[in-house]
């Protein structure tokens, strides 16, 4: 009887997740052609994988960009989120107001956030270049200079998701036991010593989970890139998902796009397994 409770979720997982994932793996070993009303598969062995790893320069460009994006957002979002959480956890009133304010970017549509930054970055009429000009500096091509486009997207993402890291770390800080801090006070520890030797070790499980979550989410960045740069100029800000999206839905090479998806899945599954074990390991089932 209790098995029946699982049926709807199982049906969804099987039809909308397991079946598509297996199909992706199948597609990746084939040339996939969309004919009217049907799909035609012709097996080509490992050609798609070989093309990705050894022939397609854009694949490695996208992989590098994605790694750059992940490194940038994870480092800065963690620093900003942790710093804010540490300060705010000491002040009850601050906590209430800043938590409400910083909730807003998290629930805003990412597309709208990208648009907001698009207006701020605008070369001619954007506020950022206006500020630079008023300071006597020369304006910057934030989104159309090949060496800057990716950084600009990283900044927008930091604005969007530092609050996420902040909220999780704040909740983590609040849940810490108070006794170790009292002991450190009695021993006359300086604030820095308290942070380094008490807060950081106690907070490290939560910190690790946040780092993993942001790494996995960052690796899948798509909407911000799509709206703000379209992957350009050229391929200078193309991300892995952006490249796969283009190969699938612009070039219509579904086999090749599936092969890249599967490669990416293999990397992400490693991280996901570490993450899930961390989160589930601490609970009694």
């Amino acid at each position, binding site marked *: 009887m209790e098995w029946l409770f699982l049926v709807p979720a199982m049906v969804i*997982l099987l039809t909308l997740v397991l079946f598509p994932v297996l199909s992706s793996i199948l597609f990746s070993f084939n040339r996939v052609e969309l004919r009217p009303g049907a799909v035609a598969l012709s097996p080509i062995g490992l050609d798609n994988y070989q093309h990705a790893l050894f022939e397609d320069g854009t694949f490695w460009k996208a992989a590098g960009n994605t790694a750059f994006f992940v490194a940038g957002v994870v480092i800065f979002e963690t620093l900003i989120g942790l710093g804010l959480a540490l300060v705010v956890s000491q002040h009850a009133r601050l906590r209430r107001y800043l938590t409400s304010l910083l909730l807003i970017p998290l*629930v805003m549509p990412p597309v709208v956030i990208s648009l907001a930054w698009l207006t701020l970055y605008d070369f001619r*009429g954007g506020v950022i270049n206006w500020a630079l000009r008023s300071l006597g500096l020369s304006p910057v091509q934030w989104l159309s200079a090949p060496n800057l486009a990716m950084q600009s997207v990283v900044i927008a993402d930091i*604005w969007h998701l530092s609050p996420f890291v902040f909220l999780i770390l704040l909740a983590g800080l609040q849940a810490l036991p108070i006794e170790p801090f009292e002991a450190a006070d009695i021993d006359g520890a300086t604030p820095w010593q308290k942070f380094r030797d008490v807060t950081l070790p106690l907070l490290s499980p939560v910190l690790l989970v946040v780092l993993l979550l942001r790494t996995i989410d960052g690796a899948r960045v798509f909407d911000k890139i*799509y*709206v703000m740069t379209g992957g350009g100029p050229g391929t200078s800000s193309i991300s892995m998902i952006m490249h796969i999206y283009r190969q699938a839905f612009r070039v219509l090479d579904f086999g090749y796009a599936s092969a890249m998806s599967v490669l990416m899945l293999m990397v992400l*599954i490693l991280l996901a397994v570490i993450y899930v074990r961390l989160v589930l390991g601490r609970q009694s089932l």
Partner: protein
Amino acid sequence: MMGTERPIAVTAATPRPNVGATQLQAFTPVQGLRRLGGKALGYALVVVVVAIWFFPIYWIGNMSLKNDLELGAVPPTFVPQQPSLDSYYRLLFVLGFDRYFWNSVTVAAGSTVIGLFAGSLCAYSLSRYRFPWALNYWLLFLILAVRMFPPTVTLIPLFVFFRDLNLLDTVIAVILAQVYFDLPFIVWMMRGFFADIPIDLEQAALVDGDTKFGAFRRVAVPLAAPGLLATAILMVIYSWNEFTFALVLTETKATTLPVATAGLVHEFGIAWGPMTASGVLFTLPVLIFALLVQRNLIRGLTAGGVKG
């Protein structure tokens, strides 16, 4: 296990046991100065944080109220000089965004209802029954891991199959894709809310001759109603905001707001006015929902982060 709220309440509400020690420190002049400096630093921080996170939001609103002439002005004006609703008018009556709005509403409602039905049944049984072969653990494992997959790994086959089934560019396709995306969050959140409910009441219902499903429907669901509402609202927000699946699975008829709004960037160069107006109209419902259930929402947003 979803008890992260409780320790917060305890530390915030009860006085620290070592009040004496804290006060003693506060009386020394160095500590006093440091506290004052700390306070000033705190206020400075608030000002900076508020400015940085408020400004881009303000700016969309500001741009949406300008007329075309003012939108192109260099330097940009910080307050609309001649406020006009022209962009909103164009958005709704010329570009036909009301259609996309209703598509988004349909997708959000449909996916939330289906997702909540499947997800809360699954979460309930995982928190109440022990299945063989450690299925509780592995199912939860799978559900959480699925959330981490690259979207294209499911999206490409779904596109192909929906095409074969003639479902491309229908809200049904977007709803189904959204359900898969929502399910992990729902199971994870609802499992915690069900675990918070004492099991005795359901047992009483079972003793009185109710079926297991009856106990779920008549006892557990009403008791978990606040959690159910918070989960529902979070899912509405997620599906309202979702971009990637809707972009791929729709073309013109079933286009949702995020896709239509993003389309304004490429179709006309950049149509700043309608684009920012759409940004405002598109964000408002989400903000209202978010402020309604703020507390439980934070619990949901941080789900999977600090549960232990």
